[in-house]
């Protein structure tokens, strides 16, 4: 309890609007910083697009082509419509995850509220995409796989409803727990130094922390990719039906 308190966020500027607790904390500042960084990166890299790309444009192009070919290929029809949203989600989550690894900065995605907000956005978008495409009754009919006899279809309907609610929940918890576990492991390794009260233990936490940091960078990329891939999967399932 006392150790994990270091991972909490502290208020910088208290702000209450109409009874809502809108305090500006570390996490809010990190979210704003990530949004500004994503905007600045894309704005300046699209200023002068060359046919033979330079370094920065090359990196972003590799990632965008990867997203277009691997992730958005699940959407057979509406690829150009959804691709900006997919790229935005991927880069926003990636920059948020990576900003949390800088020593001294607090992380925004290691907070369940931020990941729950992202999962709620995905949930709303998936349902609205399905309802817009099929109409409300048609969307409810498209939830159940077609071609089943009637009793099984009626039985499958609550199961499908529950799974529609469980998917954004699992998205939120997966991203939150991965990021939080990384920070917690680094914190535990460093508090070994305070526990032993001795400098001879120093190589173990420092080397261990370096290894965990390298693994955490990998996990940041993987978790951003998994979030984007599952979002695309749910949108494709909602648009095209089973």
């Amino acid at each position, binding site marked *: *309890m006392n150790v*994990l308190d270091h991972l909490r966020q502290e208020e910088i500027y208290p702000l209450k609007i109409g009874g809502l607790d809108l305090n500006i904390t570390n996490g809010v500042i990190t979210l704003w910083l990530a949004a500004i960084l994503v905007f600045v990166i894309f704005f300046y890299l699209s200023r002068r697009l060359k046919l033979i790309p330079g370094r920065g444009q090359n990196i972003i192009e590799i990632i965008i082509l990867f997203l277009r070919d*691997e992730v958005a290929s699940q959407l057979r029809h509406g690829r150009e419509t959804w691709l900006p949203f997919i790229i935005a989600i991927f880069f926003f989550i990636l920059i948020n995850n990576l900003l949390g690894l800088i020593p001294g900065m607090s992380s925004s995605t290691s907070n369940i509220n931020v990941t729950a907000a992202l999962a709620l956005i995905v949930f709303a978008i998936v349902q609205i995409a399905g309802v817009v495409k099929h109409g409300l009754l048609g969307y409810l009919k498209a939830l159940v796989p077609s071609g089943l006899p009637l009793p099984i279809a009626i039985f499958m309907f609550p199961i499908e409803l529950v799974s529609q609610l469980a998917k954004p929940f*699992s998205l939120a*918890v*997966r991203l*939150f*727990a*991965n990021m939080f*576990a990384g920070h*917690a492991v680094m914190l535990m390794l460093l508090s070994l130094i305070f526990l032993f009260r001795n400098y001879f233990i120093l190589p173990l936490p420092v080397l261990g922390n370096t290894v965990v940091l390298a693994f955490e960078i990998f996990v940041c990329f*993987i*978790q951003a*990719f*998994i979030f984007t*891939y599952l979002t695309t999967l749910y949108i494709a399932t909602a648009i095209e039906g089973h």
Partner: protein
Amino acid sequence: MEPRMIAFLAAGLGMGGAAIGTAIGIGALAGKAMEGIARQPEAAGKIQMSMIIAIAFVEAIALYALVVSLILATK
């Protein structure tokens, strides 16, 4: 025994059991993926991508157990 003792014990045991299940699951998954790659090295890219996605699913279940054990250990 006080409730706090049992809560700490449950936190440790719960996460340990989840770690066992996850390790078995991911190990089986990676083994099958290696077999697939050994059989057909041209499909290595696709197999690798699907393996990573499946690993994320399996790991998410272990992380649910982690969240529960963190709640237990800090109460």
